[in-house]
């Protein structure tokens, strides 16, 4: 060990630290951290469902109440054409995936900020925090499907065979959710007030996505740009078509939207990886 005599004002440019991020390495690290993801996931669930019965009820009640409100007021005031589907069914099948998306993004966005302390103790791949949050929200979504079952029984409606497309729709939705959550969770570290802006964006999103109304309310010529801007639109429309109506997803809109979701995912991941080197500097 030796002491260098003269230290320049700033490091020579060629010494700059460059972090190389590879998707393969990130995936490997994430796999190694799977126990941590699961433990966080389990912890979040346990915190939410401490009182077993009411806890589970809380996953179903909000979308149900919202659906009832929509049916009782909105549907009464403006007759929204549903193509013969009972409105509760029409809206609920869209509300469940939308709630999954919006709650994932909202709680995922603060997942890094609230875990900065944990991150400073030992190296953990940072993706762990948004991902475990999304997982626990997925459980909520699954539970709220119980409401859908009730509605099916009530209206003696059965899910159609075209429901086989649901996993594909879910895949597109997951890509979009992950991308947006990665993006916001890392940005919020540097711009804490962004989370307030985000809740507004999410609220607007509720109306900018065909949840209360069908995608057929959008003029034909605008549907493609609309779907590109909001890839969730054809996805949510897709759930409705496949599960309730027995139609195929509208491929002409879904495929471009799927491409767009993938772009969101890549973009979100890249922003996340770019910004994560500074997470600990701020804590």
């Amino acid at each position, binding site marked *: *060990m*030796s*002491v*260098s005599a003269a*230290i*320049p004002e*700033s*490091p*020579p440019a060629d*010494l*700059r*630290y460059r*972090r190389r991020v590879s998707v393969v390495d990130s995936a490997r690290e994430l796999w*190694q*951290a*799977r*126990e*941590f993801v699961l*433990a*966080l996931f389990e*912890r979040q669930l346990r*915190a939410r469902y401490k009182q077993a019965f009411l806890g589970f009820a809380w996953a179903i009640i909000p979308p149900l109440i919202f659906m009832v409100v929509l049916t009782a007021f909105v549907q009464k005031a403006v007759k929204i054409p549903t193509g013969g589907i009972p409105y509760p069914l029409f809206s609920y099948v869209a509300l469940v995936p939308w709630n999954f998306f919006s709650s994932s993004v909202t709680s995922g966005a603060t997942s890094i900020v609230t875990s900065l302390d*944990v*991150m*400073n*103790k*030992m*190296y*953990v791949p940072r993706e762990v925090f948004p991902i475990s949050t999304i997982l626990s929200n997925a459980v909520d979504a699954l539970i709220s499907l119980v409401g859908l079952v009730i509605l099916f029984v009530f209206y003696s409606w059965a899910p159609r065979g075209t429901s086989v497309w649901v996993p594909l729709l879910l895949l597109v939705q997951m890509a979009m959710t992950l991308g947006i959550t990665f993006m916001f969770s890392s940005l919020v*570290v*540097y*711009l*804490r*007030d*962004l989370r307030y802006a985000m809740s507004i964006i999410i609220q607007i999103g509720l109306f900018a996505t065909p949840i209360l109304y069908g995608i057929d309310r959008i003029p034909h010529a605008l549907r493609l740009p609309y779907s590109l801007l909001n890839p969730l639109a054809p996805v949510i429309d897709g759930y409705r078509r496949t599960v309730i109506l027995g139609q195929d997803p509208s491929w002409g809109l879904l495929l471009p939207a799927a491409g767009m979701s993938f772009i969101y995912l890549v973009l979100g991941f890249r922003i996340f990886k770019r910004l994560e*080197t*500074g997470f*600990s*500097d*701020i804590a």
Partner: protein
Amino acid sequence: MRRGELVVDRVWKRFRADRRRTLLRDELERLRARRRGEQRGWTWALRDISFSAGPGDSVGIVGRNGSGKTTLLRLLAGVMYPYAGKIELSGKLGTLINMSAGLHPDLTGQENIFIQGSLIGLKRKEIARRFDEIVEFAELEDAIRRQVKFYSSGMQLRLGFSTAAFLDPDVLLVDEVLAAGDAAFQQKCLARTTEKIKSGTTFIFVSHDLQSVEGMCRQGIWLRDGIVAAAGPVRHAVGAYRDWVERFEANYRDRLRKSGEARIVKMAVTGPEGNGIRSEEPIEIRTVVESPDQRQGTLYLGISEGPSRPIFVVHSELALQNGHTEARCEIPNLPLPRGRFYVWVGLFDKSGRDLLPWQPATEFDVTGPDLHPTPQGIVRLSPIQMSTAWEVDHP
């Protein structure tokens, strides 16, 4: 690279001076400043740091608060990234940063152990094999199944150290553990660490407790304002740090004049009959305080080695007169070895408010036998029980 090898090569790290300001408004302000061509707001936390260590090495990093010790440790732990330079580290990494241990406060002690193990790449079976050992060492017993946030700070510390040290790390990074925790556990940690170093673990220890560093490490690095000011054998590096602190503290008397409601007029340490100060002989500490009015206070005197916390503190009630008050404190049997020591002084009123803030006021040299050097693994904290005799009058 061999397992347990660590190379730090010309590492630089900078922070924003206002790094806690993270609102959109702040970001816009920064943008505007940059537009105007102002280059501001960055400070270097570390500059051009290089060192290396290998299996069986033990490196102590010392320095004042804010000298970059913890930043360096975080860079080594991989939770922070350097601005320039590179850090290479091979093998499994055990870290104990921030004292509060357990990776996640919401998880139980058991979950924390398994997760930390899995994160550093151990298989479940391998962790299970060490689990009992960890729990036993940490003296946690049934508490291991409770959430870490309900642990006392002592329990957290014990869990943290045991987890870091028993998951067989190739490199062990530890931050200030020995500052907390009870003496018996500290000794256990020391023994365990020494054992790990002997069996080939690379040990990096960050602390401003110089005694601990000297007791546990063979090599030392002294960081001063983010640069390596001295590096080498621990006694050399820590010694250089001590010397510097003494020189730095030499101008403390100027600061003393302006402080508090009361002020020190004179402070002197003398041996018997004006002779030099020798170990195991009586000394007298004379303090003359000036006060603007009559009041009641408690005078505290402490003796320290270098900048660290005092080795012992004595006190006496003191009735201050308007003007000068002289207090003479006799220590009949000075229990200090050869070396330079500092006298700290502070004057507090009944509510604990300082009339004179606690600070070093003078220094004195003791002649006598050298402190016997202890073998690696024994840390001296010098707890001393003092009997004193006081005299107060108002000349």
